[in-house]
């Protein structure tokens, strides 16, 4: 582990007995940490339940780390932070096989990736080789080193942050890699009132230490299964298809959204409807999550992509 990538491990707190084990309670708790960002928090949580990875594009200091930590604590998961730099090597993320002189054999020292929530900070600062090591782990949910395959935790979840790509010294993620992130969001600055409140009550990181888990990984898995059973009307299937087609037809957005993105969109839509306590999907759900799913895939940048996604939504007639 090089000095440039600071990692830290947090042991999950024991599950408190009186936790309200409802998704609403989780969102409530998260919103308490990241004030005034209800939609963003909900998206991040939905992304996790839909078993997808999250990409946050924003400048430093808006609470990316806070969000990731809060997620980990609230869900009772352990988390690791990796600062991506331009000298980062794949082994720094995945781990290395070291020679043990005592047993005269190699043995594997797992890297920071072996965790439930991995916060990959400034992922576009690392060279493509390190990026692809992470992204492969994201897709396969396993790590192969020296011919040995090491499975990652069942609830492996990556929160990657990237700086606005126009900055110097960045390696923008290629389109195929962006496609592996289910959701791309920006957190954005708090509004004036929220910021005042923030200033008044001091740093929220202190409150993080007092957070208690609201749920367990097992519960999370059950929620995932429940969300999968949300009913989707055929009109909405057609609507989602029309949205995908609209991103492809005029060539403004490269090749548009892939079928994988379509599946991811549907999964997230279902989770969104389930989070609202419904057993069926509505067009509003699709419209609420579409920019988050399509944004980073369409233009490579979350901010400009969300405008493109809004444009697509305004062009396709809604059922």
């Amino acid at each position, binding site marked *: 582990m090089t000095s440039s990538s600071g990692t830290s491990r947090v042991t999950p707190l024991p599950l408190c007995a009186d936790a309200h084990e409802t998704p609403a309670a989780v969102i409530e708790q998260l919103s308490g940490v990241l004030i005034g960002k209800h939609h963003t928090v909900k998206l991040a949580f939905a992304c996790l339940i839909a078993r997808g990875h999250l990409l946050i594009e924003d400048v430093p200091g808006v609470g990316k780390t806070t969000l990731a930590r809060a997620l980990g604590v609230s869900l009772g998961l352990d988390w690791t932070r990796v600062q991506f730099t331009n000298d980062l090597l794949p082994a720094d993320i995945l781990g290395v096989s070291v020679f043990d002189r005592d047993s005269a054999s190699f043995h594997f020292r797992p890297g920071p990736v072996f965790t439930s929530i991995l916060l990959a900070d400034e992922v576009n600062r690392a060279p493509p080789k390190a990026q692809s090591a992470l992204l492969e782990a994201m897709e396969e949910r396993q790590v192969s080193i020296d011919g040995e395959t090491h499975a990652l935790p069942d609830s492996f979840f990556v929160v990657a942050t990237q700086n606005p790509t126009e900055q110097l010294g960045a390696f923008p993620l290629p389109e195929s890699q962006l496609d592996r992130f289910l959701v791309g969001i920006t957190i954005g600055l708090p509004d004036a009132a929220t910021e005042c409140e923030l200033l008044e009550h001091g740093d929220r990181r202190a409150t993080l230490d007092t957070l208690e888990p609201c749920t367990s990984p097992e519960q999370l898995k059950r929620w995932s299964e429940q969300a999968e059973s949300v*009913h989707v*009307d055929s*009109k909405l299937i057609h609507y989602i298809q029309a949205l995908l087609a609209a991103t492809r037809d005029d060539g403004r957005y490269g090749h548009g959204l892939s079928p994988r993105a379509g599946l991811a969109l549907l999964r997230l839509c279902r989770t969104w409807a389930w989070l609202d306590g419904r057993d069926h*999907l509505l*067009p*509003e759900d699709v419209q609420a999550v579409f920019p988050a799913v399509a944004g980073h895939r369409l233009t490579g940048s979350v901010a400009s992509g969300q405008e493109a996604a809004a444009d697509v939504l*305004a062009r*396709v007639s*809604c*059922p």
Partner: protein
Amino acid sequence: MTAVGVALGKSTRKKRWVPQVLNLRPSTAAVEPRILSALAALLLLAQLPHVVHLPLWATLLGGGLIGLRVLACKRPDIRSLDWVLSSIALTGFCVIVALLIRWHYGYFVGRDPAVAFLFILVAAKFAELRRGSDATLLMCLASFLLLTQYFYSQTIVAAAVTLPAVLALGHALAVVRDPVRAAPAASNLTLVGAMLLQGAPIAILLFIVFPRLSGPLWSLPEDSMATSGLSDSMSPGSIADLSRSSEVAFRVEFDNEVPPKDLRYWRGPVFERFDGRSWSAAPIREVATLAVDANATGTINYTVMLQPHRQHWMFALDRATGLPMSSSGDAKALARIMTDGQLISDAPINRITRYLQQSIPGDRVHTGAAPGPLTRNTAGRNPRAEVLGQQLAATHDSPEAIAAALLQRFSQAPFRYTLQPSLLGISPVDEFLFDTREGFCEHYASAFAMVMRAAGIPSRVVTGYLGGEMNGDYMIVRQSDAHAWTELWIDGAWQRFDPTGAIAPSRIEDGIGAALGADEPLPSLSRLTGGWMGGMQLRWDRMNHAWQRMVVDFDDDAQARLWEKLGIKKPALWQLTAVVLAVSCAWVALLIGLPGFTWWKQYTHERRLPPAERAWQRLERLLAHHALGRHIGEAPADWLQRVARQQPVLADQLHALSQGFARQRFAGVDDEAALGALESSIGALRKTLRRTPRGKTTSVPAPA
């Protein structure tokens, strides 16, 4: 195109003065290749039917210019083409072509030279095409060129050839409208085809009711159109030439009975003057008055459709008992009858003429006039024949006996009936009678009439047609049925004698095909009395006949007959205009889709939807009607919330509807009671909306 531009630019620098002063260079880049190819297709299709009648050089020049222009577009590197296709060169070319046409036709102001000149002018204009606006002129010229082909032929084939050209015209219009974004040719042609079908009812209506004039508005100097059919004189070989043509001379429809084959003598030009070789009509003839006995027994009534032959005579079964009457309501005689029994019209038969005719078939013609001196003149150039005539007169006592003796002589060998007799010299009758002894009907008729004159019996030659083939309910008489026979003045009347009957009796009974050997050069049609090919030919002629009767012959007469059949008076022009306009408007309205029509489409579309969707669409329509319509891409709940903000009084109702519909449409439940409740709340909403004044019409921004 960039390459073209560069090439042109370079040349402009080199010879700057030339294009600037003379504007010689056609800027091939200025016209879209798609326009060019669409126009080329149109012009070639419009030119195609003219190839038949134009001189070969005109066809080649016209087609070649189009080819050159297309080549210049495809191969801009061929520099010499620019000069050939320059305005100046083409103007000069047109002048030369005008002179050539003048030389070829002998005159310039007339229909045929004008058509030939238009043919080449269109191609020259195309070769010089520079601007898109020229394309409009070119398309108009092409349409007119397309029309001029009907001067020469109005058959089914001519009509069929026009259709692709009309499609090409539509395609060219579409391409010229927007050459870049125009649809591909196939879909354009489909569209134009559909449009032609849409316009067809109007076209048919106009064709039927448009008033026809009976005469021309003006006439150009008479065109030297070739006459066809029988001519105004007869010399050895002239009928034989005609017999090689299978062209239709006229068609006949009989009112009831059809005369037997041996009585189908169709009387045409009658010749009394003989110069020793050829026969021609008497210079002065008088108009005869017919002793009309219309109801005499054996009278045959029939209608003749005479093909234009550009001569004055008309045909009737020998012998005519009435004048040819026009077939329309206002029965008027189209011709007069001469003392020699011939029907003569005032104007040449330049278009298909339809007339009613009466005849009593018979071989004697009674006319008051005694035969003139011309009918006795032997011309003195055939001494041997004259001697024969005198001998016959001396040895027989009655004219019938003299005639019978000569016919007896003909019926014996070595007299032969053939289409290809040996050529005859200065005494054709002598040579035929005593040397060659082979000939066609005119040889026999000519020799018979001359010998009879030598024997002191006044005689004359009659030409016309013998025979005719029934095809369904009508008879076709072809040029190959042309015939010549004789009439002798016996007992104060002209008696028909057909010497051909002596040498080839089957000619009269079974037609020319039966009378001639297989090696004779007869048109195949005259021989095909059976077999599938003959059947096909006859069927084709039947189609042509129907086409002729229903389309080509649809003139003022036919129109008048139609009004008669419909039992209405001939409508005035304003009435016709009103009818056409009304029907056209009705038709267009029907096609546009009357409110009922679109309503019906919407209705059937909605019937297929589930009930919840139908109710939802009703709600959408209701609010759209009140200028509260849903934006595209606006989610249902967002829309209803927006409406609720605009019309706060509706907020509660809309909220309930929003909830209800979300459940009905997306939750996959099928709850009829809830649906009924929704429908009634739509009704309630309608009432509320009616009471609410319409919100100010402001543009509401679409959802971001």
